[in-house]
């Protein structure tokens, strides 16, 4: 059963504790920080106060409107003669906005409070349709729960209720039942405080009040799914989950979202063997409790009809379903015949276990170092851009650390699409912690939300001129003596940078001044990762970070769910697991594809990499797939890449296997198996392991994912000591040994 999501408090959003005060709640004496909301203090004391509109992560701006958390308050009063006595406040107070003060006495269960709650619920239910049996929220609904625990059994209201058409299409993924809404303003505050698009608001007044976008346009957001979980009634509902199941029909499994490298903690709610919905799971270090729409609604492929259920062999241009014995026989035969002329690409969507088995198979059984997990633009040594200079590879900061930055530079990234959860942290740093955000991109999309909506400064440069822009900023820092630049931007002037990038000189100057004010984090995105002169741009980023004293605050997060883990596991041509350099490096992705296109490669194994869809050099990928090379693909469905292959093996999705993912901030997190779609679908590691066994074993044979994790923790220094148990529910972030 889904846990009650309304019971979290977030300390970081409260004012800093300066003083403790003594209060009494229902006879329980306790010390709380001065100014803390009584509703949170009551939670400390274990006293239950019902509420709807209150939410610890949302600002209190429009709150205290549901009136459910009323309590009686006695406050000390000093008489003219100096004696202090307790005086009852004449009316009950809303505990969600009542700050704690010395000597307060709170009563949550007096006769008046009980009566008031009954009255509030009776009012809330006047226009609520009470169609709980057909409401998707029924069974996990705060209104239902509070009505049962605190409400009256009957209503005195006999008139006609308010009626609206059902299932109003509010957003692409969200439908809205206006009859059920109790006007708690959680969704409107979410769009304003968290996602930053501020699209939802209240229209009209009184009994006619309704939530909507102004002018009734479509609610277009990248985070619209969260309002479904926030809604304390069944007013905001998921379009895809609508009428699919009731909460008691579902089983729930803890997992990690597979859509991007942020690694949001999620719950997979499933029924029999089909995934019904994804809900956010709380992990304060990663996603807090949010999910993006890609993660929440983008997993329908898991239980789709299109899933491959048997190996497929292409003979004479026709696809034929074959069984595993035959598939492995063909594959092993081809690998034997290839005699070492084999190469592997992929692994970014696979677990660490899959990747470890992948490189074991290639290095120890097939004796080839030609494997690479990367499909982005830069394919040189992973140590070059950052590691050799600063001692880390991708992200210097943890996601949560971004909150503490004074300035954040988002460079060459549509952050909200590429790294949605990092976007939410940046937004939180801006909204609640007063950070200044600078957005530098080559193109600004029309849609919202985006970093540009709240960035203090937006620098729109000509595509490919990132390095010039950064050098321009460095030259300003140097010219205005804002930082010691060590001659990083020699020969560069502000005018030259402005001319090359197309950004006004003033804007560059402003940006430089903002960056010199304190802790600066730089987040670089896809434009940098795929930049033709990647090294030069990263060099410039490093110069800027070093000049401003923020060498540990550079972030180049990968994009796929396990980009980080695949590299950690040594699915790289020049490094063994744990970035141990190899004596004779193999070919990288581009070189492998070139070899295939030339006809010098016999077998190419693609583990889930979408080469034809994503590889920047599409012509090369097409030439490789058109060649005589025997291409094996592990895939879930017949993607474009799979269509172009010779043999396709059905692989398990993240919902069907055990394992670990490493997210962009190097947090190793466990995923758990929820269900089986078909017993003919195998996890990638098992496919690699079975081939290794048939090829003569070596180090490539494993019995279970847990078995592989044991091998990883024994052989990869950074993962030393990690066990399924020590990873727990929130995962463990590994650090470089010397840091």
């Amino acid at each position, binding site marked *: 059963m889904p846990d009650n999501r309304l019971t979290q408090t977030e300390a970081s959003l409260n004012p800093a504790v300066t003083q403790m005060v003594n209060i009494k709640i229902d006879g329980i004496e306790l010390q709380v920080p001065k100014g803390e909301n009584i509703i949170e203090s009551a939670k400390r004391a274990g006293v239950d106060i019902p509420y709807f509109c209150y939410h610890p992560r949302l600002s209190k701006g429009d709150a205290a409107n549901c009136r459910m958390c009323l309590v009686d308050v006695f406050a000390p009063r000093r008489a003219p003669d100096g004696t202090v006595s307790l005086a009852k406040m004449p009316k009950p107070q809303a505990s969600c906005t009542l700050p704690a003060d010395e000597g307060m006495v709170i009563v949550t269960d007096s006769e008046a409070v009980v009566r008031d709650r009954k009255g509030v619920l009776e009012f809330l239910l006047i226009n609520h349709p009470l*169609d709980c*049996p*057909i409401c998707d929220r029924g*069974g996990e609904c705060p209104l239902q729960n509070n009505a049962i625990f605190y409400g009256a059994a009957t209503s005195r209201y006999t008139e006609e209720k308010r009626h609206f058409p*059902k299932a109003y299409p509010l957003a692409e993924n969200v439908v809205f039942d206006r009859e059920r809404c109790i006007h708690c303003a959680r969704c409107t505050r979410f769009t304003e405080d968290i996602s930053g698009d501020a699209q939802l608001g209240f229209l009209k007044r009184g009994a006619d009040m309704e939530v909507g976008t102004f002018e009734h346009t479509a609610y277009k957001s990248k985070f619209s799914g969260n309002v479904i979980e926030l809604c304390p009634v069944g007013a905001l509902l998921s379009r895809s989950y609508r*009428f699919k*199941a*009731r909460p*008691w*029909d579902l089983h729930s499994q803890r997992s990690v979202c597979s859509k991007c490298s942020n690694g949001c903690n999620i719950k997979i709610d499933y029924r029999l063997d089909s995934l019904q919905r994804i809900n956010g799971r709380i992990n304060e270090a990663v996603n807090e409790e949010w999910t993006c729409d890609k993660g929440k609604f983008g997993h329908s492929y898991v239980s789709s009809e299109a899933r491959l259920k048997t190996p497929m062999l292409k003979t004479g241009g026709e696809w034929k379903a074959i069984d595993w014995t035959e598939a492995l026989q063909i594959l092993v035969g081809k690998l034997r015949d290839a005699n070492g002329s084999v190469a592997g690409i992929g692994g970014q969507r696979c677990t660490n276990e899959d990747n470890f088995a992948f490189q074991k198979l290639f290095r120890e059984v097939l004796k080839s170092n030609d494997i690479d997990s990367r499909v982005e633009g830069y394919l040189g040594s992973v140590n070059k851009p950052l590691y050799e200079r600063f001692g880390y590879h991708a992200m210097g900061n943890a996601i949560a650390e971004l909150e503490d930055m004074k300035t954040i530079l988002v460079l060459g990234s549509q952050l909200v699409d590429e790294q949605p959860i990092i976007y939410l942290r940046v937004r939180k740093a801006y909204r609640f912690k007063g950070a200044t955000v600078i957005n530098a991109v080559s193109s600004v999309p029309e849609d919202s939300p985006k970093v540009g909506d709240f960035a203090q400064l937006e620098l729109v440069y000509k595509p490919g001129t990132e390095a010039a822009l950064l050098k321009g900023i460095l030259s300003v820092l140097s010219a205005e003596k804002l930082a010691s630049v060590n001659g990083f931007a020699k020969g560069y002037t502000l005018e030259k940078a402005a001319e090359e990038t197309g950004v006004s000189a003033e804007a560059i100057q402003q940006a430089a001044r903002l960056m010199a004010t304190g802790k600066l984090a730089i987040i670089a995105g896809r434009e940098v990762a795929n930049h033709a002169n990647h090294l030069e741009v990263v060099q410039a980023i490093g110069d800027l970070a070093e000049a401003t004293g923020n060498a540990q605050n550079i972030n180049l997060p990968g994009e796929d769910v396990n980009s980080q883990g695949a590299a950690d596991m040594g699915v790289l041509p020049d490094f063994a697991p744990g970035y141990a350099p190899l004596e004779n490096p193999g070919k990288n992705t581009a070189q492998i594809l070139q070899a295939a296109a030339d006809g010098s490669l016999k077998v190419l194994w693609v583990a889930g990499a979408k080469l034809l869809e994503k590889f920047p050099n599409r012509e090369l990928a097409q030439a490789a797939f058109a060649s005589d090379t025997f291409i094996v693909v592990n895939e879930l469905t017949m993607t474009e890449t799979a269509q172009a292959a010779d043999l396709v093996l059905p692989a398990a999705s993240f919902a069907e296997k055990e394992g670990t993912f490493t997210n962009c901030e190097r947090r190793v997190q466990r995923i758990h198996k929820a269900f089986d779609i078909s017993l003919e679908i195998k996890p990638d590691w098992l496919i690699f392991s079975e081939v290794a066994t048939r090829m003569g074993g070596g180090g490539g044979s494993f019995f279970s994912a847990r078995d592989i994790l044991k091998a990883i923790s024994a052989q990869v220094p950074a993962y030393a000591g990690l066990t399924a148990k020590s990873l727990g529910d929130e995962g463990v972030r590994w650090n470089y040994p010397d840091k």
Partner: protein
Amino acid sequence: MGFLRTLQNTADGAKALTTGARITMRHYMGQLLKTEPLQTVQYPEERREQFPRTRWRHVLTRYENGLEKCIGCSLCAGACPARCIYVEAAENTDEDRYSPGERYAVKYEINMLRCIFCGFCQDACPTGAIVLRKDFELADFTRKDFLYTKEMLLEGASVIPLTAVGTHKEAVK
């Protein structure tokens, strides 16, 4: 004294036997001479009248206008202690309407082998759609036949709902 007691016991036993035999003989003769009604039910030619609150086979009922009462809310499945009910819901459209309101059951299955006939589903049902009636002859030959589908459970309609078409029609006997 031992002999006297034995004699007494024998007399008591004989008396009890004749008392019982007299009752048996009275009813036997009564039924033979047709002075009292027959007590034996000649199953399966004839069936005994069931008690009014007997709980046997489930039926999904309909409204008078022929629409299904079931709204696919799955409360029966939630209440079921044997977890033997499976409900899948879908949305009614104006062209293809099965029940009043938004939602109807597209699949409704009861595993009769698991069912313990407690009647909690009937209790939980907010529309009175599922009821346990008096058909008690539920024996069958294969296990699969005990999986009662919605078509088997739905009662026949005296009126064919105007909007009901397609699969719906087949269920209407």
